[in-house]
């Protein structure tokens, strides 16, 4: 299980613009670096990050090898209705991590 830290409001007013910040532990190995034995360390990055609000996609980004380890993502969205925001990271080697957030909209 990946270590994840998320900073998002638990409650919001309908129509409010809210910020969701997410940090995940990941080496983001570029695939260009040789290891101590001289061989290239295989690429191991998060390729895709997405967020859905009650199943509807609200944010998506493609990540590249140039992004540093433990990537930090921040984005804004409009509070539409109470429910669950699911943050999802997926990448090389079958890496998948999900983090659900309950947000109450009044």
């Amino acid at each position, binding site marked *: 299980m990946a*270590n*994840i*830290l*998320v*900073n998002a409001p638990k409650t919001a007013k309908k129509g409010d613009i809210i910020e969701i*910040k997410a*940090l*995940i*532990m990941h080496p*983001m190995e570029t695939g260009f670096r040789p290891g101590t034995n001289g061989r290239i360390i295989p690429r191991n990055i998060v390729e895709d990050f997405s967020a859905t609000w009650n199943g509807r996609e609200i944010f998506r980004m493609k990540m590249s090898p140039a992004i*540093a*380890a*433990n990537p*930090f993502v921040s984005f804004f969205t409009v509070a539409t209705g109470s429910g669950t925001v699911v943050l999802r990271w997926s990448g090389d080697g079958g890496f998948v991590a999900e983090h659900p957030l309950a947000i109450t909209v009044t």
Partner: protein
Amino acid sequence: MTRLRLGLAAAGVFCASLALAQAGDPRRSGYQEMGPALRKMQDDDTANPAMLFVQAGAAAWAGKAGAAGKSCADCHGDAAVSMAGVAARYPAIAPTLNRAVDLDGRINLCRTTHQQAPALASESDDLLALGAFVALQSRGLPIAPPDDPGLAAVRTQGAALYERRQGQLNLSCANCHDDNAGRKLAGATIPQAHPTGYPIYRLEWQSLGSLRRRLRNCIVGMRAEPWDYDAAEYLALEAYLMDRARGMLLDAPGVRP
């Protein structure tokens, strides 16, 4: 909402206490030398990447290990109580060994004697995570090295190493961190070398690292040959630096550029 307000109040108290510690003291921590963006990154527990390691460390604290089948929590209980101020004290003399050990050494001592588990490798993520979790419990507390006469010799050795010129550039630690602290080396501000934030998340490393790793970094920069990872020289320097930073507030786990 009240919880948020409490959190903000606590953060306010923490910042105010850092400012207070500064008044009348010419010593400045690496935290105080950083720009506002990096300070903000460190102060926000959901933006400080070291907190990812703290999360892992908290899990390791509660997890059973070794032949004894004990977790750290089985003996020490709630870390917020039992580990408060511990990171501010080390290096200290371990009574069973009758020699100085640093916090990582103390954690490994617990592992090998009480948990009967293999020692964690220096600089491994597991050891750094536990170290970060323990150090966090002392955040905001003043560095308080013990007045143990057994430490005097180690500190003297550390002070001598700090003053000694070495390497192809023929520099001592003091040449930069005492004589030229606050000035620039290339684009970076030279800090006064007070170990207030260890283990640190160094952006250049993209990882958490110990004071030992930081010392090795400087030694390589002086174009001297670094000592082995478990060398007594690092322990001596750590003991001296902690004594030199006596009374300064810990801000571990820190973020550094």
